[in-house]
């Protein structure tokens, strides 16, 4: 298991570095950051001033290496837009995203896995069809629209929850529902498909023949095998939720990492973008590595891979 772990970690670090490098380059392809920073009223001489002030006139590799070097010592620099340390800005927004993403992920798992299992017991049955309907709707309804409808009904008509912002915990209710609903269909369908496949396998028939309790067969013997692809998918979904749904954060005026990344890209706030990309790629890499480890633990055959 240890060499496996080491191999995974090295790959993970390389992935994070590569993502960071590509992102850095792309920022410059998308438009001269100095021009973006100067704003729409910025004249040529303002642009020149900014280019020099922020060291944007140096060769790209020099800028990138400089950034990496400082980042390794924990110094992410200063936001060009807010003129505050990047760590401060991200410190304000990361907890919001972690909170939203984790709760939504938990909710998605708690709803979709049991529903998937239940649907698999009687494919084509009433429950299966109801679950399918729910999944299709979840896949088809744009999340910003669902968000707005929930806002109208629960925020404006009934006044039960805040419409936007996260100043109170109630502000999280609607966005958590929308974000988790967005992730549910895939998780549920995959659980269902996996369970149906496994339940038809020989060893389950054997288990049944041995007279094991139905619940025990389902939860121990079947689920453990059916859950393998689910773990990988769940890791990616969780990563997506943590990287913040820009759409949901926009609709509910939630100031998380996703929207900060998007806004910072538009305003060429290089230090913030770089730091977020590093954090997000680390999150993704950690999650997928964790998923691999969980799968390797669940299924010893995977450990040699």
């Amino acid at each position, binding site marked *: 298991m240890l060499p496996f772990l080491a191999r995974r970690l090295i790959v993970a670090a390389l992935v994070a570095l590569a993502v960071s490098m590509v992102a850095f380059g792309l920022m410059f392809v*998308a438009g001269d950051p100095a021009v973006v920073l100067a704003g729409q*009223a910025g004249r040529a*001489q*303002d642009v020149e*001033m900014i280019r020099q002030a922020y060291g944007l006139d140096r060769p790209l590799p020099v800028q990138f290496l400089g950034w990496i070097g400082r980042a390794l010592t924990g110094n992410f620099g200063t936001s060009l837009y807010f*003129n*505050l340390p990047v760590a401060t800005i991200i410190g304000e927004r990361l907890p919001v995203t972690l909170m939203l993403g984790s709760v939504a992920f938990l909710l998605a798992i708690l709803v979709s896995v049991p529903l998937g299992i239940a649907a698999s017991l009687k494919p084509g049955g009433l429950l299966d069809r109801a679950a399918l309907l729910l999944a299709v709707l979840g896949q088809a309804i744009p999340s910003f*629209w669902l968000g707005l409808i929930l806002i109208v009904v629960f925020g404006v008509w009934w006044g039960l929850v805040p419409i936007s912002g996260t100043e109170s915990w109630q502000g999280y209710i609607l966005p958590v529902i929308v974000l988790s609903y967005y992730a549910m269909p895939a998780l549920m369908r995959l659980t269902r498909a996996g369970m149906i496949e496994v339940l038809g396998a020989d060893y389950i028939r054997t288990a049944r023949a041995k007279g094991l309790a139905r619940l025990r067969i389902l939860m121990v013997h079947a689920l453990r095998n059916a859950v393998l692809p689910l773990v990988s998918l769940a890791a990616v979904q969780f990563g997506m939720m943590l990287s913040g749904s820009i759409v949901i954060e926009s609709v509910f*005026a939630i100031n998380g990492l996703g929207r900060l990344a998007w806004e910072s890209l538009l305003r*060429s706030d290089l230090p913030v973008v770089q730091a977020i990309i590093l954090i997000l790629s680390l999150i993704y890499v950690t999650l997928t590595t964790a998923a691999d480890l969980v799968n390797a633990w669940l299924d010893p055959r995977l450990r040699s891979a």
Partner: protein
Amino acid sequence: MARLGLASLMGGIALALLGLSAPPARAGKADDTLNVAFALEPEALDTYKIAGREGLILSRHIYDGLLYKDLDTGEIKPALAKAWRFTDPMTMEFDLREGVTFHNGAKFTADDVVYTLNTVLDPNYGTRFRIAIDWIERVEKVSEFQVRIKMAKPFAGAVEMLADALPIYPAAYFKEVGSAGMAAKPVGTGPYRLVEMTPGIRYAFERFEAHYAGSPKGRPAIGKIVVRTIPELNTQFAELLAGKLDWSWRIPPDQAARLASRIQIVNGPIMRIAYVGLTVAAKAKDYPTRNLLVRRAINHAVNREAIVQAFAGGASQVLNAACNPKQFGCAQDVATYAYDPAKAKALLSEAGLPNGVDIEMVFAAMPRPVAEAVASDLAKVGIRVTLNEQQYAAGVQKWRAGELPAFFTNWGSYGTGDVAFIISNFFGGGADDLVQDKEVIDLVTVADTAQDRALRQENYAKALKKIADQAYWLPMYDFNINYGLSTALNFKPHPDEFARWWLSSWK
């Protein structure tokens, strides 16, 4: 920011649903708090480094300048300076007001003016717009309450700039904490002080009770202001209709019409204008736009009246001169080009292009439907446009490099009512000038630096006439914006896009 077509359609459905409800309009009147929403995040509140309007609005509530312009009367009023005069054409002297205190209790003196302005003059400080300060050579202290500004060059916009655009910081504090400290905890003399801030997210203000007597901004009627960033307009509407928001702006015309029966919609014209710049200069490639007949054909081909009616609405009007008619020096007796596709075709034939011509047009910071309408009008007379949308930065970069025959965008003149802030940029021979007409450059340069208003007016008029005759631009229209307000709020919009909440009150 461009949104998906589907997004606005679905948003429209949600908005229509909103109309079915009947919530009470409570708003912030009850707790004397003006609840404000911006779609864009304000920048760090060091005025000298702010490019975006949101941050500038907030900073004008925190800081004061030496002078103040009353936009309703056009009058320049004393602010931190109680009197001023030109002692010679290149020297200004200011008598400062006594008894003014900063939010941190520090007393305002000449040292604050001298230190603030001299600091931001330093190129290393990184003042965002050189135009704001590059006319100042240095600032000297004459006495405890008197300062002198030595100008680096004649600049007709000097007084305009000193009117609230160049705020005065408390010297001791500013010296200690620098720009980053001002950003983290701004301290000024303004009518409101910042009491709480989550950068880019939430800003809470309270009336500064010690704001100096005799301030042109006056004592605000509203005690508290809370500003939040709500990026999605539909969410802003929901907040407005639920009575949790009192002030929002830049509401598109179609949505404003739908909201008008439920909240207070106020429409006002602004300085910003839309235009299509055409590349003429010799250093650029041999674009068809170098041909006067083609440029005139472009001007005749686009049905600007219809476009304004369909997309801009409100108080917007078709422009003929390359400036906003509200600006000083924006002469209106220039050549006009009526919508006349037949004439446009004839002009193209005369130019030796009976089969039409292909050009690329980039649009930035303009709605796609408007750009498409322009392109389709041009296509009708045989000017086949390859239309590309770009971020403003990318577009303006190509423009400055001479890589674009046509650039459709807009310009806000820094919210300033003087043509110096528009035609000097585009026709004064600088980097944005892709015409490089020697005669126009000379006219504009003289007008920009003269103190004599009649001479300035005459020169700008001549320049604008030549610009229109030569059809160097396709001037489109001036913008207007819709404000969505609580029905309990008195708010007066101003064309410089600076919200003045210190003038607002509850009904």
